[in-house]
């Protein structure tokens, strides 16, 4: 199994740097290699330190992951409580892609901010990985500084996160859409973007060209999303 967690020595180096230079961060090195930063002022110092220092150098930006937390921990099917008619059928509630962000309820573990970006870094020289996670300040207009000047590979990753989540990377040299169609509207991996999309294409016989029109199919869910906390424990014990 790929070992993500930095070893004790590397942990100490990282912790030492974080504690002396930064204001607000959380980590859980016991269980995973993610370090969460709560203050955007730390962004530039952290990134440039990790890319270039003499103790532990993260040469490769392996991946950059945008996340939309607006649907976090919300299930479509209440499997915990039943009334005298039995359990709910799991088809009534609005869920991912079928509601607007304002109507969502919060889950106990749901982050307060909607968007986050995870930077997955790999150190080839010391064989270590670390995930750096930053939350975007403004839910309606999420943005983060660009790190293309630190790791060149961030260029396309940031374009991808912009395309799919609408996260704007400030000072990016060429922030265009990358995966979606020319002239696409919306950010498809946001949780309030429907799975079936908003438009479909059709060949119009009269106009003799392909035209866009609103989708004519209805969203449907074959298997509702359900959260069963107690089963999680049983799986581990089994």
């Amino acid at each position, binding site marked *: 199994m790929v070992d993500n967690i930095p070893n004790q020595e590397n942990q100490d180096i990282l912790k030492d740097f974080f504690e002396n230079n930064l204001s607000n961060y959380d980590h859980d090195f016991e*269980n995973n290699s993610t370090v969460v930063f709560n203050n955007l002022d730390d962004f530039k110092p952290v990134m440039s330190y990790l890319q270039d220092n003499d103790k532990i150098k993260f040469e490769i930006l392996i*991946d950059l992951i945008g996340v939309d937390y607006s649907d976090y921990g919300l299930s479509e099917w209440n499997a915990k409580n039943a009334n005298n008619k039995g359990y709910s059928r799991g088809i009534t509630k609005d869920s991912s892609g079928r509601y607007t962000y304002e109507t969502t309820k919060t889950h106990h573990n749901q982050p307060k901010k909607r968007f986050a970006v995870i930077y997955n870094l790999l150190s*080839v020289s010391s064989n270590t990985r670390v995930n750096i996670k930053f939350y975007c300040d403004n839910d309606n207009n999420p943005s983060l500084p660009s790190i293309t000047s630190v790791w060149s590979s961030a260029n*396309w990753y940031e374009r991808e996160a912009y395309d799919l989540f609408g996260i704007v990377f400030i000072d990016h040299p060429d922030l265009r859409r990358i*995966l979606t169609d020319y002239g696409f509207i919306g950010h498809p991996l946001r949780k309030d973007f429907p799975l079936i999309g908003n438009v479909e294409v059709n060949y119009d016989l009269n106009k003799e060209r392909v035209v866009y029109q609103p989708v004519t199919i209805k969203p449907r869910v074959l298997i509702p999303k359900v959260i*069963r906390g107690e089963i*999680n424990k049983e799986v581990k014990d089994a």
Partner: protein
Amino acid sequence: MPDIKSFTMNFGPQHPSAHGVLRLILELEGEVIVRADPHIGLLHRGTEKLAESKPYNQSIGYMDRLDYVSMMSNEHAYVLSIEKLLDIDVPERAQYIRVMFDEITRVLNHLLWLGAHALDIGAMSVFLYAFREREDLMDCYEAVSGTRMHATYYRPGGVSKDLPLTMPKYEETKWKSKKEVDKLNEAREGSLLDFIEDFTNRFPKCVDEYETLLTDNRIWKQRTVDIGIVSKERALQLGFTGPMLRGSGVAWDLRKKQPYETYEHLNFDIPVGTNGDCYDRYLVRIEEMRQSNKIIKQCVDWLKNNSGPFISDNNKITPPSRDEVKEDMESLIYHFKLFTEGYCIPEGEVYAAVEHPKGEFGVTLISDGSNKPYRLKMRAPGFPHLAALNEMVNGHMISDVVAVIGTQDIVFGEIDR
């Protein structure tokens, strides 16, 4: 005539050497490339979005369709990430089967790469040679999963079926005489493992054949040596992994550095290039095929001598056997729940990666405790490679673009996702 200095050319998306649906906007100064701007996304299917709407096991099939020339390796990373969050154990036999098929997949991928790369540069016959061996490996896929490409063979907790004891055989037709069929079936008389063993004995000679055609070929060298040079530092900066990184002289391989499954018990070497040009990457991949062959051989030996379960017996995750479902109430319930609802995964965030034939294929999985992934991000190795295309072709001739696209081993299934 007006004095035109530079002009723009559209390369693809229907160009045969654009490897699928790459659209390149090339800015040219005569025949020299000033800027290359790849437009991708023409094969975007929204796999990540689709996976969010399905229980975990139903997305395994989508993984095959990411990098559609190394199917099982993609599944492997996905399945590993689920296993990691669930914290379940995989039986040793399943681990060896997975390693064996990962390496078969690597050979499959490199054979297609070699054939296509050579074809792009102008060597027709390598393609025919490479596809001859690919056919045998496709038969292994078919024997074990029923499909020749999109296997959906790996499962969280193991693999879906044990290795079959017979190989499917060719039948006599109007076009194939009995003599021909008998020759083809010669290696197929025994089990799948016998067939693979026979293949591993044959294969090194086949690699020699490819090398005879290319390695010292004058034209091949003219087209690849000193083309698309990437230095060590730039390769790291640009996020290269796999043969692209090793070709530039960085000895980095997850199978050695962060071993998963049973790689730590297996004996193999990691080839490394020196110049970081197309020719070095070619040599690295050729040697990787030989090393993979070695690993497959070791796995076959182990699998022949050891038996055991091929999938975890934790029925919360894996389906119970048909017999059990018919006799045991509890198994029936497990079976029903598993196929109607799937299983829930504890809350958490995990990254699992494998050494995919093209580089590091990673899966970041964020679970909110439900039966569907909250966020699934695939790290396709080809994505940063293609992003570096501009830098690699800058200053080269237009015909070298084809060589560089070939050496990057680009497949759009994984880049566009």
